[in-house]
């Protein structure tokens, strides 16, 4: 074999090596970033959840003790119950209202584009700003409800000082802000439905309510399920609105798990216990998502 042929063969084999390594080299930056910003913090959180912290420092390995403690902590159980009620109520209202608005905006009439745009505005406003505005609306001294009530000869309207009203007020804030998201997803879902079955139903004399129950709802179910799952996962993590509006009060009426976890970690410096709390909540949300996905798979063929 000539020297030139040997050299060409070596170059080819070197090229083959590079070809083999290239995909890994190209993937490496992304993998490293994922490891640094996702896997490591997750691992660190898991590690912290198995430690007892005092004065901001880990002092002992306690295994699963922090997790067991959660289930005998009345404050955590209350926060979890408040969170579940909040997510359930808020997402239910947002779904019903979002669907109603999507059905209404499905029609074409003058000004519909403007209306669709206006309807999504709440969603794009910063949640903290929304919470500040709602706090001003609910305020018992100078709030909108109090002002209106006094204009009609009534008295002060106390919303944030009453546990039930404060909770409803928080749900109302969330519904106002996030119904547009449900509206947007469901409108896209409705627009993607085939028209033939609807035309056939109309020809057969079916009324709008019958069409909605027998056609629209079953055909929209997969989209509806995705929207509900996404919104519920997001609602589980609600923090900023509560932080600004009520800080979890009055009493513990609006203290979501996110607020309790934040206080536990940063105010009380029980880092290990807070980590266990967030891991447990993560697992609960994951279980909910998996359940919803399985449900979705069962629904899809319909």
């Amino acid at each position, binding site marked *: 074999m000539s020297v030139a042929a040997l050299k060409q063969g070596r170059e080819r084999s070197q090229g083959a090596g590079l070809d083999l390594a290239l995909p890994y080299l190209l993937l490496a930056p992304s993998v490293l970033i994922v490891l640094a910003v996702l896997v490591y913090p997750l691992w660190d959180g898991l590690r912290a959840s198995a430690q007892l912290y005092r004065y901001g*420092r880990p002092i002992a390995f306690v295994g699963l003790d922090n997790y067991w403690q959660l289930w005998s902590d009345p404050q955590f159980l209350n926060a979890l119950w408040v969170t579940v009620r909040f997510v359930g109520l808020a997402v239910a209202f947002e779904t019903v209202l979002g669907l109603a608005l999507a059905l209404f905006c499905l029609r074409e009439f003058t000004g519909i584009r403007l209306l669709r745009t206006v309807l999504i505005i709440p969603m794009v406003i910063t949640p903290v700003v929304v919470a500040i505005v709602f706090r001003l609306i609910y305020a018992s001294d100078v709030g909108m409800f109090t002002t209106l009530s006094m204009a009609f000869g009534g008295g*002060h309207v106390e919303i*944030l000082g009453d546990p039930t009203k404060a909770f409803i007020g928080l749900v109302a804030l969330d519904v106002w802000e996030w119904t547009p998201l449900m509206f947007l997803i469901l409108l896209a879902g409705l627009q993607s439905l085939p028209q033939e079955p609807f035309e056939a139903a109309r020809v057969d004399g079916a009324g709008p309510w019958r069409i909605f129950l027998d056609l629209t709802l079953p055909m929209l179910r997969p989209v509806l399920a995705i929207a509900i799952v996404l919104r519920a996962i997001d609602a589980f993590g609600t923090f900023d609105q509560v932080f600004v509006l009520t800080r979890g009060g009055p009493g513990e009426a609006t203290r979501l798990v996110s607020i309790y976890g934040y206080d536990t970690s940063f105010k009380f410096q029980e880092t290990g216990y807070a980590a266990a709390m967030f891991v447990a909540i993560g697992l609960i949300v994951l279980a909910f998502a998996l359940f919803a996905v399985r449900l979705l798979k069962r629904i899809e063929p319909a």
Partner: protein
Amino acid sequence: MSGNDSGRDVSRRTILKGGAGIALTSTLSTLAGVGPAWADAKKVVIGAFADGGLTPFKEKIIPLAKEQGFDVTFLEDEYGVTLEKWFADAQSGAGQYDLYLLDDPWVPQFGAAGVLEDLGAAGVDGNSKDWIKPLIDMGYWPPREGPRVKGFETAKPTLVTVPFVGDLQTLTYRNDVYPNGAPGTWDEVLEKGKAGVAAGKIKYPVVFRGVSGNPIVTSWYPVFLAYGGEFFDDKWRPTFNSPKGKAAADFFVGAMKQNAPPGVVEFDSDQEGAAILGGDAGAIIQYSGNALKSDDPSASKEVGKLDFGVVPKKEKAIAQLGIFIAGVPKSAPHKANAIEFLKWYTSPATQAKLAEAGSIPVTRSGFAVKDPGNRLIPVALKQLDAGAEPRPRTPDWAKVEELLGIELNKALQAGSGGGAALDVAAAKVTEYLTQAGYYK
């Protein structure tokens, strides 16, 4: 390629070269510590939470410090986020600050974590007679007096922080409702306040903060102290639910709520401030940051009608101390400058300037100035003499306050049951402190 194109290429290259040159120069100069002339000043990065009590420091003392050769960077944040931000900075050794202006209940947390410099070892004299004793005592961890938490029973008290701006609760009252001067007792506050309401001068005799957690506990505390309550015994057993404490809580959630604005359960400092400055309320107990707004026409509708006095008493007239207190993190990038700054700042001359600027000083000599910058300063000294106590010196105060605040807030919603709420809170606090190893 046209001549124009070529010209544009050259110019782009020149710009790139120039940019690279500037970047390289600034990087090298940063690494080598070379900088413009002003960089010779002694840099000090101060972290603080936003509060009106620091306004005189910002407006008058920082310019003075600059004259002394300090290059002060003053970084302000919302109160709610500073504790975690600074604690993370100190623990991770990030070195973003040279000086933290802490709220004094945070001193045990930072002290126990061992993240602050020993200022005594650095030459700050904690035994100087010029300090106001209750204030300098708050700078030590573990505390020089009173019970100590587990793990620090035998540790030597170390000066980890020094008082920065003195502050304590005082009474702000309407001088047309209380024409004979500050009401001396709580009964007088309510009785004369009701007369003021009947005369149409005010709408409510008192206002306070009712929000769960720190706000309601801070508002209740001077009432609790006035009734002669004590929070813990020397073994950290809660004693706030003693008969005296319960009487204070019943008075607070009952009589005081009945004489306060309707939504007081949800009131925080902005709403209580609006009630007193807007002319609705007759009296309030508050810290200096809000009290000083009384004389500011842009903030108060009642300029000239609001006076200051010692807090009302039942048995005693004791206020809560709550000062700004300065600590130097071990990770401070300009540690020596920060300590030098503190020595200068706490010197008699600077404290006098601070008092003249309108802040409550932290040394006796500061109170001796002829012309204090506001009329609250002599009242603050009267209150210090009448009695003022800090909150219990434990790193777990935030949790204790939270547990108590929730129960007090629930009782306030109901308008009764203050004493029973204290029993529930005491049980929860005991359980928490047991878990934290206080009684082993």
